[in-house]
């Protein structure tokens, strides 16, 4: 009863909140909402037909399809590897673990263009180990794996840390082997975090530009991703076409944001 009361309490000094709200709304509207609205408006300026033509051109479709495929694949791989790495970072002990843990954030801290160059150094034409995947679709996958690496890891780590070991010990005392414990006790608890991390990784992958632009060669119908396509449209003075494909990407982002929030709410349904 008292917790309901706390939520609905009228506050005699709500001024900081009100002031914060006023200014934040203004700022957000000017910097974020207005420009995004402009994109949507521009994309439909010539009517629905223009929009549809821009979005369904062979090159646009190829770019969008490739982007979706490679983002999904990289998300999948990083979901699995990310969970594994999070596990090792939380449950294992070895020298240098703290350093490794700090380095996980490198893709967050490193500029995307530098990330691309970095991968090119090892996996490009002048690779010291003879692996050259530059200008292939695999290069794009590699770039996305690099930039989306931290998402699942950082999403899963706190959940793993907070995990109540009692549940695992209870399961073990009831006769369950480690594999079973992992599948039936640990994974269900981690799943919401994995999904929300994966959703963030996917959203990032779909829009990624800087790391891809150098290593992929941006070959239309082959290694060109949606963001590069949009960029080329802008350069060719076709903002309408760029806006149309951008709206598709924006729609995807919104979908993903909603998915993350739902996963978050779903994940905490067992918390009390």
């Amino acid at each position, binding site marked *: 009863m008292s917790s309901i009361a706390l939520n*609905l*309490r009228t506050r005699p000094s709500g001024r900081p909140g009100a002031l914060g709200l006023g200014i934040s709304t203004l700022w957000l509207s000017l910097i974020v909402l207005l420009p995004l609205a402009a994109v949507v408006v521009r994309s439909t300026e010539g009517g629905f037909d223009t929009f549809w033509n821009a979005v369904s051109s062979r090159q646009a479709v190829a770019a969008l399809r490739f982007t979706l495929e490679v983002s999904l694949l990289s998300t999948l791989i990083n979901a699995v590897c990310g969970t594994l790495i999070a596990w090792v970072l939380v449950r294992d002990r070895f020298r240098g673990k703290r350093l490794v843990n700090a380095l996980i954030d490198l893709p967050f801290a490193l500029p995307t263009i530098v990330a691309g160059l970095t991968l090119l150094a090892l996996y490009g034409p002048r690779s010291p180990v003879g692996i050259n995947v530059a200008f292939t679709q695999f290069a794009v996958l590699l770039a996305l794996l690099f930039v989306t690496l931290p998402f699942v890891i950082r999403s899963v780590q706190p959940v793993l840390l907070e995990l109540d070991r009692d549940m695992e010990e209870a399961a073990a005392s009831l006769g369950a082997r480690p594999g079973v414990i992992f599948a039936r006790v640990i994974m269900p608890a981690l799943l919401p975090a994995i999904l929300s991390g994966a959703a963030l990784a996917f959203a990032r992958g779909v829009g990624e530009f800087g790391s891809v632009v150098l290593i992929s060669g941006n070959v239309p119908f082959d290694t060109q991703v949606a963001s590069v396509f949009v960029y080329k449209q802008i350069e060719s003075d076709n903002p309408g076409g760029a806006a149309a494909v951008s709206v598709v990407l924006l729609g995807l982002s919104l979908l993903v944001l909603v998915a993350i929030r739902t996963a978050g709410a779903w994940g905490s349904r067992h918390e009390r």
Partner: protein
Amino acid sequence: MIAVEHVSKRFGDFVALDDISIEAPDGKLTALLGPSGSGKSTLLRVIAGLEVPDTGTVVVSGQDATRLPPQKRGIGFVFQHYAAFKHMTLRDNVAFGLKIRKRPKTEVAAKVDELLHLVGLEGFADRYPAQLSGGQRQRMALARALAVEPSVLLLDEPFGALDANVRADLRAWLRRMHEQVPVTTVLVTHDQEEAMELADRIVLLKDGRIAQVGAPRELYDQPADSFVMSFLGRVSKVDGRLVRPHDVALSDRPEDGWEEAMVQRVVHLGFEVRVEVVRGDGEEVTAQLTRAEAEALEPHAGSIVWLRPPASGVSA
């Protein structure tokens, strides 16, 4: 003096306070006592200005404070969980109110030292709250509240978050404090023992309404109803009436009109002896005897005693 008149407050559908009118006399310690959800904390926060009532008025030290923010009411407030400024030292915590009022540094320093001495925390001035125990933090909170010389001191379950023995110590300490510095004080607690020990006057609340107001002795000896009686001390139920266990008389000889009962358990609690008997109709009654009475009676499990019918008591 504090006067609350016809104050009501609801949160959505929940009625926290229903037409409450009370007074807290000058220089005295008034306890707001009641179970969870009785509205006692809400009432305290209304007095403090941390909540705005839907109806009614609040008068603090002669002025109508109903629309005044907490800053302007001249109050001191102590929270259950201390609300210590974690990033400041003890000294800075206690000095906060004075610094806000832009008092000269020498005055602030002197006052802080005086207060730290008063609450027994002299050596801890440069420590941070995280380095202190719960009891020390609460003493600091009190010093902080007293620093601005409030006309009214409000305490919201101040010992609720502390261990039992610390609680007992601080209770005694607060009583001494209050005798030394008799500020008009209102204390919220759910612990009847605490209220009985500390208060000059108790306001017992239930479901947002006043159940009874009076001195502790008054509420204990002349409870208005069964709720008040049950809340303020142990009760035994005999024949549909509530009596105090120490008012239940037992005899080893049949007396006129007394009823037969069998002893089930005898528990020796040091200075008192609890005797649990069961009557013919199966009703269980607990009697509390002094050691002398128990020695005279010599009760043991299975023995037959006679139970005096309740003369006083409140109907259950």
